């Protein structure tokens, strides 16, 4: 089992969700984040001061999947999030030692989906 963490552009979430659904990945957890990357950030001018916003708003996805879903999930995220421009985001993959469904107490691969 793997835990996939992806940072994407906020306005790409609808597309990523759609791509994941098409890949039969229905479960995920979404958090708000601020990201520092290669992307320069837009500049706000507030009261005449140029305001270089270098912590940009990002969406952080967390998706636990079984091994055979790892690549489809990564591809789906790329499909939904990629524009080819700086700021598209990153995907991190971690080993997941255990997964438990609270409702039933099931453990392991069955608990994921």
């Amino acid at each position: 089992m793997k835990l996939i963490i992806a940072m994407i552009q906020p306005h790409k979430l609808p597309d990523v969700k759609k791509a994941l659904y098409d890949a039969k990945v229905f479960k995920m957890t979404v958090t708000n984040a601020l990201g520092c990357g290669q992307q320069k950030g837009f500049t706000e001018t507030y009261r005449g001061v140029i305001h270089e916003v270098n912590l940009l708003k990002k969406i952080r996805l967390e998706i636990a999947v079984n091994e055979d879903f790892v690549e489809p999930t990564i591809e789906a995220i790329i499909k939904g999030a990629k524009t080819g421009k700086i700021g598209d985001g990153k995907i991190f993959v971690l080993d997941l030692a255990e997964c438990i469904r609270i409702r039933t107490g099931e453990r392991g691969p069955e608990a994921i989906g």
Partner: protein
Amino acid sequence: MSMKFLKPSHRLLGVGVLVMLLFLPLLASADDSSTIKINSVAIDTVWTLLAGVLVFFMQAGFAMLEAGFTRAKNACNVLMKNLMDFCFGSIAYWAIGFGIMFGAGTLFMGTSGFFLKDAGGTFASLDWTQVPLEAKYFFQMVFAATAATIVSGAMAERTRFNAYILYSIVISAFIYPVVGHWIWGGGWLAKIGMWDFAGSTVVHGVGGWLALAGAIMLGPRVGKYNPDGSSNAIPGHSIPLAALGVFILWFGWFGFNPGSTMAAVPEIAHIATTTVLAASMGGIAAMITAWKMFKKPDISMALNGVVAGLVAITAPTAFVSAGSAILIGLVGGVLVVLSVVFFDKILHIDDPVGAVSAHAICGAWGTISLGLFAQDIFAPGTTGNGLFFGGGWKLLGAQTLGVISVFAWSMTAGLILFALIKKIIGLRVSREEELRGLDVEEHGVESYSGFQIFTTQ
């Protein structure tokens, strides 16, 4: 401060005379009569100005209502539009609009009195009130600004800022005043006996139909309609702001309706009463309709219902009984809910705040209701009785003609104007800008800096 103005009465009489006058009334009667007249003008002026100030505050109400009902990423933009349409509008109406509306001219529009220049008799259409010319301007200007600002709600979250500024100027300077002239400036609708006490059609009709024209020309927001034709909810970001907005609007409406007397006549008490009853019933009716239809008492519909009741009673407020007012508000409240659903789900016209339903539809209803419920006793020698009180079809006919003509004029003028703007500078922001939000894209700011907000819709 610093002894700036003596009261006219002092000026006329002089302080010495004033003292004398307390002891020698008979001799001082000539002065008394002047002072009586001065007092009368003073009361009317204070009333008209304060009512105008209340109406001015409705700008804040619209700004809060529209900001609250849209998403956080567009809040600054909609606030800025509300602010700026007033700024441009007040000047445009001073320079041009007031002349077109009340200046001497044809049955179609006024052609004199620009920059408030009164060449004597220029503003004869407003001679029925004795307040100073600039009080008339002030009160009428805040009305014009109301008509203009209604449009911003229906076009929120996707309209370019410079396009908005442009059309808001044209509305205040020309489109609105022409209708105003027809009905209040002695134009052709007034001549055929159409009545609109405080502007269900003049203000809310014009604003509402222009909002419809704008929403049609723009098309719906990204993500509003699904490929299968079903519609998505795009919830507003702050219901407390929206609720505050409606309370402010209601507050201001007590200047809007009663103040339209432009004179401190006793009838203002009746007008305030019909206004409050219709608004309350509008809120109740909309809440219950929404409750029945969607299983929950939707606050946004209840808020719209109050506005609907207010818009509906605006035309007949002075001419109908309290009981009729309650009925008029009730129909308005039901209507606004059905209309919101109709425009959204059937016609697929995307109106983020429900401006078309609340202002155009309920404005039309209010204007027509006057032809049904008017009673001669409330303002003898004006409307006469409406259909339900034995007055026959005549008044109802005039009212209906008025509604139709104003619809035709506003839609035509609006569609042409928006088409021109679309051609010349573009009406709508790009999909990308829309998704990121107009605050960052058009104004380079965030409405809620530091707050964590999901801006994914």
